[in-house]
């Protein structure tokens, strides 16, 4: 704003020196000025992001772990209409661009967020809008699938945030050091997550597996106006050999989700939660970030047992499309103030078999807004 004001002042001074200018001259001067100011602002934000990334990288190299620390900015975020912002961003990026402009815009995006344009399946000028380009498919063979039958592959392009084995009461996943959330909260109360109750740890674990649709006993839970339904750690432990992996997708990453193994998807759950950002700062400052945000969970079975994948939206990437259920709509206008309503659930037919997916099959896509 100050930059534009400076330009206006300069223009007025010039006009008075020239004995007065016309309004049309003024407008033609201010508009490019505003454009330059916007470009400068975007450049500054990008530089800031690079600086923050470098700091985080340096901290990791030094073995310094990020610690949970809520702050005022995170509290302020809760007051913002993030869903409306997300939907507006989606509408904005859906605007069809002139053909001549498309390569410039997409190259600028790729440069800012480190995307590889060589991998895009179609020529750049064929993507009508930034939203179309964002969710582009890749050229055949760009992502070879590891053929080893004894391996589980990455479902997305991204950065590994957390991984490990789920152990102990409640099966908690660490968001960052100092704050964890329970897997049951992430997947939903009706999840058939294989758990064994306290005191039955030595029993044959297979007998303890729940079937889809079977409700977990609502032992104790709490509902808050400010947060969604959060399950407290149950007095049960995950069955032997239950693992997790959290992968973060940067804005420049390929945003389609593929199948990690051959499996049968039995159920889908859609949690219409909030849409906080999910960047490094947000994970460090917002409690239950992944449990609060809008997400789609697919659960099923593979040859080794339970399998679930949760695709979690964010402010900029708010909607999730399922290839196996094209009718599903996410990031709809918020109608309810409460964010604790149960998820919308769908069991895939035929019951007990569901939909079969092969390793590497496309499952879902994240969309802008």
């Amino acid at each position, binding site marked *: 704003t100050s930059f534009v004001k400076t330009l206006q002042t300069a223009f007025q001074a010039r006009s008075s020196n020239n004995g007065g200018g016309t309004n049309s001259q003024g407008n033609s001067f201010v508009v490019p000025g505003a454009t330059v100011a916007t470009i400068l602002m975007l450049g500054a934000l990008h530089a800031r992001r690079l600086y923050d990334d470098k700091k985080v990288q340096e901290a990791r190299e030094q073995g310094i772990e990020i610690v949970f620390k809520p702050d005022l900015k995170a509290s302020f975020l809760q007051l913002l209409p993030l869903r409306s912002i997300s939907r507006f961003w989606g509408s904005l990026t859906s605007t069809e661009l002139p053909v001549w402009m498309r390569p410039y815009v997409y190259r600028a995006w790729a440069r800012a967020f480190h995307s590889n344009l060589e991998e895009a399946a179609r020529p750049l000028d064929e993507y009508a809008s930034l939203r179309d380009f964002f969710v582009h498919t890749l050229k055949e063979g760009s992502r070879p699938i590891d053929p080893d039958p004894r391996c589980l592959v990455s*479902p997305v392009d991204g950065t590994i945030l957390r991984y490990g084995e789920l152990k102990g009461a409640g099966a908690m996943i660490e968001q960052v050091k100092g704050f964890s959330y329970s897997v049951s909260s992430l997947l939903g109360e009706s999840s058939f997550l294989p758990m064994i109750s306290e005191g039955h740890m030595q029993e044959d674990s297979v007998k303890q597996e729940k079937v889809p649709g079977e409700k977990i006993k609502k032992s104790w839970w709490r509902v808050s106006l400010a947060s969604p339904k959060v399950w407290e750690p149950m007095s049960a432990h995950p069955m032997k050999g239950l693992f997790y992996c959290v992968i973060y997708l940067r804005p420049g990453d390929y945003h389609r989700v*593929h199948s990690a193994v051959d499996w049968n998807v039995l159920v889908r759950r859609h949690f219409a939660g909030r849409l906080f950002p999910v960047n490094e700062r947000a994970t460090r400052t917002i409690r239950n970030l992944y449990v609060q945000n809008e997400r789609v969970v697919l659960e099923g079975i593979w040859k080794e047992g339970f399998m679930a994948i949760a695709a979690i939206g964010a402010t900029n990437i708010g909607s999730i499309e399922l290839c196996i259920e094209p009718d599903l709509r996410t990031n709809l206008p918020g109608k309810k103030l409460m964010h604790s309503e149960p998820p919308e659930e769908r069991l895939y037919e035929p019951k007990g078999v569901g939909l079969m997916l092969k390793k590497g099959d496309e499952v879902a896509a994240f969309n802008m807004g």
Partner: protein
Amino acid sequence: STVVLIFQAPISESPLKKDGSSEFRFCVGAGDRVRVGEALGRWNE
């Protein structure tokens, strides 16, 4: 956006078998960049 994968995987059935030959092991580390189709973890049979 973020994706969380939760899965059961083979682990050593016998407490006497401590060589970990049938255990699932991640072959990635925190902070690693991964791409679709790259192995996250492996196990032996």
